[in-house]
């Protein structure tokens, strides 16, 4: 059997790639997708703990994360659409009206 380390390191690697995507990319939709990637990486570590410990609450948490991801997708994409309608861009460097 594989140790839990393998799964946790895979999860850490995917999470770091997601962080890199959020920091490097300037397109709001790709930043959004990187956040989904990070949520998915966390799900992998929750599920691996759940099955290695024989405890179901980790999978319940994955359920909640999925719910939040779906809600986030609906609201985030609506925000992106209304941003594009008002400013005709999704480049986050040009969307700075909340910056002081």
């Amino acid at each position, binding site marked *: *059997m*594989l*140790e*839990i*380390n393998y799964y*946790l*390191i*895979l999860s*850490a*690697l*995917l*999470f*770091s*790639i*997601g962080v*890199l*995507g959020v*920091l*490097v*990319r300037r*397109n709001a*939709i*790709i930043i*959004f*997708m*990187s956040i*989904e*990637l990070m949520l*998915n990486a966390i799900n*992998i570590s929750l*599920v691996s703990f*759940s*099955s*290695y410990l*024989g*405890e*179901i*609450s980790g*999978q*319940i948490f*994955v*359920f*909640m994360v*999925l*719910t939040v*991801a*779906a*809600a*986030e*997708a*609906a*609201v985030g*994409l*609506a*925000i*992106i*659409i*209304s941003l594009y*309608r008002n400013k005709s861009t*999704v480049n986050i460097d040009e969307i700075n009206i909340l910056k002081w």
Partner: protein
Amino acid sequence: MEWKLELILFVLLSVMAVFSAIMMVTRRSPINSAIFLIINFFASAGIYLLLQAQFIAVIQVLVYMGAIMVLVIFVIMLLNLQDESKLSEQFSYKKLTSLLLSVLLFCLLGFSVFFGFSGKFTSISGEAEKLGTAESLGKELVLAYSVPFEIAGLLLLAAVVGAVVLAKKSFD
């Protein structure tokens, strides 16, 4: 023999997941990124199956690949975006710092996992196979976690209303 098979499947799926994640972050056009993200979610569903969480794997395919990514691709097609210009050519210290930061984050997480968990949990619990079924998850969700379950429903309702209000053209 069984151990070997698990290792081979794990290596295959994780290489697929990491490769598609890197491609997703580096592709210039958003639609290519979305397709690589779908491949990544597919590989993660395989990893959930390896961990004997069957129901979560099915839900991953249904919700992430079926609902969320369709929504994302729909928005990309709707907005008719141009490619991000000169992603790889333009070099800046900001990007280099971001790369360094995420490598550092990976080192931190990897070292803490390596020193914290090596030799501790060596095999999947015998009950895992029973835990991952829809039956046991549904029972737990309705009996022990009924309040969070209801709150999640409320959250989804709020998200639907919020999405409709935000994407509406004018408030009248």
